[in-house]
């Protein structure tokens, strides 16, 4: 019980920390909105070219897809983050391992705190802007909301675990930056950020689903928007759970190996 309390404190602290970056939040919302309008333009043009509907998307649902995507970019945080890698190269990581909290669980708790704040601060405004300007489609079944929340929590956790693994590479190599950028490139193209994965040609879709990336963004968007309903939505959530279990297991293994290999470069 004591441990759970500790992790909740860590999450709350991170929540508070991110709530202080007010101007950054405003700037983020502004830029996400501009990008949102560009992406809506692109999909609307494609849909009208296709005669009104494309891969199950019409204008309303495409708009919903775009604005949900813009809303979830910040909380899901597919973009790189190298805090742990930096601590490895500076040697501070030795202190982290000596602490009475588990490295992975502590950072996971902090990430959930951050994601919660950013969901509220940078998630709601783009949805609001999208709703009043272009228009959004609400899901047709109330089950979309609870399932969507679960899907979102899973998505953030999957994203965190992958970022955590990328950071752990720092234990084995000096320059993590190259791997971080590679992860960024592959991740952003396969997660459904620019175009829905459902639009991908068959061969690319297979590649995408062989990675956890669609589960980070495309899946919660699909469940929350009602693109998949009821049984199909549960299946999507199920696949997310499968990915999370696999990734967390892998991360425990890597962390264990990393701790044994501890190479402190900070002297």
């Amino acid at each position, binding site marked *: 019980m004591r441990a759970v309390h500790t992790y909740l404190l860590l999450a709350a602290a991170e929540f508070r920390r991110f709530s202080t970056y007010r101007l950054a939040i405003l700037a983020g919302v502004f830029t996400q909105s501009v990008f949102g309008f*560009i992406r809506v333009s*692109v999909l609307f043009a494609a849909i009208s070219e296709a005669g009104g509907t494309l891969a199950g998307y019409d204008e309303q649902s495409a708009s919903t897809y775009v604005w949900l995507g813009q809303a979830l970019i910040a909380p899901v945080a597919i973009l790189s983050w190298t805090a742990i890698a930096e601590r490895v190269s500076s040697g501070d990581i030795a202190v982290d391992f000596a602490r009475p909290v588990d490295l992975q669980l502590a950072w996971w708790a902090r990430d959930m705190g951050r994601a919660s704040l950013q969901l509220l601060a940078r998630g709601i405004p783009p949805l609001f802007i999208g709703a009043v300007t272009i228009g959004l489609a609400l899901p047709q079944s109330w089950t979309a909301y609870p399932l969507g929340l679960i899907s979102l929590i899973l998505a953030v956790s999957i994203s965190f675990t992958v970022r955590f693994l990328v950071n752990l590479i720092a234990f084995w190599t000096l320059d993590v930056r190259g791997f971080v950028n*590679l992860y960024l490139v592959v991740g952003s*193209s396969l997660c459904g950020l620019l175009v829905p994965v459902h639009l991908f040609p068959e061969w690319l879709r297979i590649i995408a689903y062989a990675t956890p990336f669609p589960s980070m963004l495309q899946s919660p968007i699909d469940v929350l928007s009602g693109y998949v309903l009821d049984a199909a939505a549960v299946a999507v959530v199920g696949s997310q759970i499968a990915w999370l279990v696999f990734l967390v297991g892998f991360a425990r293994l890597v962390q264990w190996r990393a701790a044994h290999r501890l190479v402190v470069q900070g002297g």
Partner: protein
Amino acid sequence: MYRTIIGSRVRSQLAYRASFWLNVTTSIGVGLVEFVELYVILANVPVFGGLNLRQAALVYALANAAFAFADLVFGQLDTMPSYLRLGRLEVMLVRPMPLMLQLITSDFQLRRLGRVAISVVIIMVVLPGLDLQYTPATVYLLLITPFIGAAIYAAFFVTAGGLQFFLISGEEFTAAFVYGGGYAGHLPGSVLITPLQVLFTFVFPATVTAYLPGLLIMGLPGSEFLPAWLGWFAPLFAAWAWLLAGLAWRAGIRRFTGAGG
């Protein structure tokens, strides 16, 4: 002096071979990511913004080359917010070199050339199938467009840089027109909704970097709002973009040094 500085940066980057090639690969990947979007859309519909895959690929390649050049020279301005916070800019102001030049040469990234390579490959692939009329005008446009385009995108970077002095931690505002502009510039401009067409043609002339010249090169008419002949005025649009950039930069420096910094 500048050659020495840049030369040393290049040498230091080539010292770590494996890391360098990983970065080049990633840089190539960056050039490909946005192309994936165009490719996926044109795998679903035959024509997008009046362009088929080959034509859209040409526009994309021209825009990508332009953006990559601009990023190569002026991309370091992205680090200005952190330099500002750390107080490193004040140190730079004391040196006998113009601030802008110091920032540009502070980290010359050779690997960004990987992104240019993508454009070259795309152009080589699509050019034969496009059946272009190689008049002097077409050749002129093909050669000059990446450079004027680069000038325009560079102006965005500089404008963003100048605004950093006012925005401090609100730096992400500028990403809206620097990277948003880059994104819009790679697309067929006619797909954008009208307010965005106005924004990215007459304020931040992204559509002029590749789409409009591309229409001229390929002999296409364009749309009512974005006719192809606007593409001839690209140098004028570039001048306008640099006017904005110069104003923003000067205002920023004046504010920064005027505060006793």
